[in-house]
């Protein structure tokens, strides 16, 4: 896909996630944010905390990759690698209904400072917006990002950003089922 088209789509998706957090989550009382799902699953705060652990890992790597990356004067066409497609599709809430257990380092505690979790989620999404804007002028397929749960595997920055955002989408939907 043409890079600017892709990055604009992703920017719009992050904007929607931010609007959900700003309009809804940050205005909810702690009782609602911390209430387990009706099936005993994660609360809204746990869903967001899970996402924050991914942001903690990926966002600094994205920023570092972009600082070190080459300027893009042409317009790149972004192609997913085989591994990238697998990672993205597995998290796509439209395609994969398969459930995964959260991996070590990404399992959220039950008792959380709910407001701080929401605030951190908002900070990270604002940071992600800036990353997407910087990426417009960089050759993002040359930037390689190790996968958090299997660091010997690498995605290019385009795939890694898509993976992170679709993973956000998946768990925001999960969080919204608690509303």
């Amino acid at each position: 896909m043409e890079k600017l088209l892709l990055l604009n789509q992703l920017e719009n998706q992050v904007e929607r996630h931010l609007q959900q957090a700003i309009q809804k989550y940050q205005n909810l009382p702690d009782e609602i944010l911390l209430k387990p799902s009706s099936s005993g699953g994660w609360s809204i705060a746990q869903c967001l905390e899970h996402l924050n652990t991914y942001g903690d890992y990926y966002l600094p790597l994205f920023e570092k990759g972009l600082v070190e990356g080459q300027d893009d004067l042409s317009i790149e066409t972004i192609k997913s690698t085989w591994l990238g497609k697998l990672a993205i599709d597995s998290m796509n809430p439209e395609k994969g209904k398969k459930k995964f257990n959260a991996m070590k380092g990404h399992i959220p505690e039950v008792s959380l400072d709910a407001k701080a979790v929401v605030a951190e989620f908002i900070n990270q999404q604002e940071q992600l917006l800036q990353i997407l804007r910087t990426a417009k002028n960089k050759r993002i397929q040359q930037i390689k990002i190790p996968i958090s749960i299997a660091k010997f595997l690498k995605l290019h920055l385009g795939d890694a950003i898509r993976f992170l955002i679709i993973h956000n989408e998946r768990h925001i939907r999960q969080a919204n089922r608690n509303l």
Partner: protein
Amino acid sequence: MLSDASHKLLFKQTVDGIYSLSEDDFDAFFELFKPFSAKRKEILTYNGAVEKNLYFIIDGLQRMYFSDENGREATILFSYSGNFGGVLDSMMNKTPSKFYYEALSPSIILRASFTQIEQLIETNPKIEILLRKGLISAFSGVLERLVELQCFSSEEKFRQLLKRSPHILQIVPHKYLANYIGIDASNFSKLINSVQI
């Protein structure tokens, strides 16, 4: 999106509130303003750059803030629908701005080049009167804000903010409101609970 006619209406309401112009003078002034959209967290004016434009806000919320060498921020003011905006001292003095001016939500804004406004003023003294009166009203706003900062409790500052913009809690991340009021972001939810809207 709002149509051009509604842009003009909103602009006219604000201008009339400052200084009424004849229809011709108003049109000559309004013609200088062109619409654009700004995304969330898009910086309209950078610290160190000369402010080239006068802005008029159709929709969305923006803030002017100061950032020190340690990255600590002070949110000086917000601008809302129906306000003129921009870093006015930098614009008029043509000196580098000490502040950032950024969109905090997706925004629709009109902007006019200050050079063109100055050219219009040369042939049209009424525009200069409008500008002067507009600046006096901005100055009053700054003085009121100083009183708020020195005399008001956090709760009173928060109430004042809600009075100006009742939906602000659903439009921008609370950390910016906490910063404007001058409290730590982690104390903001206590403040909301104490004020009970």
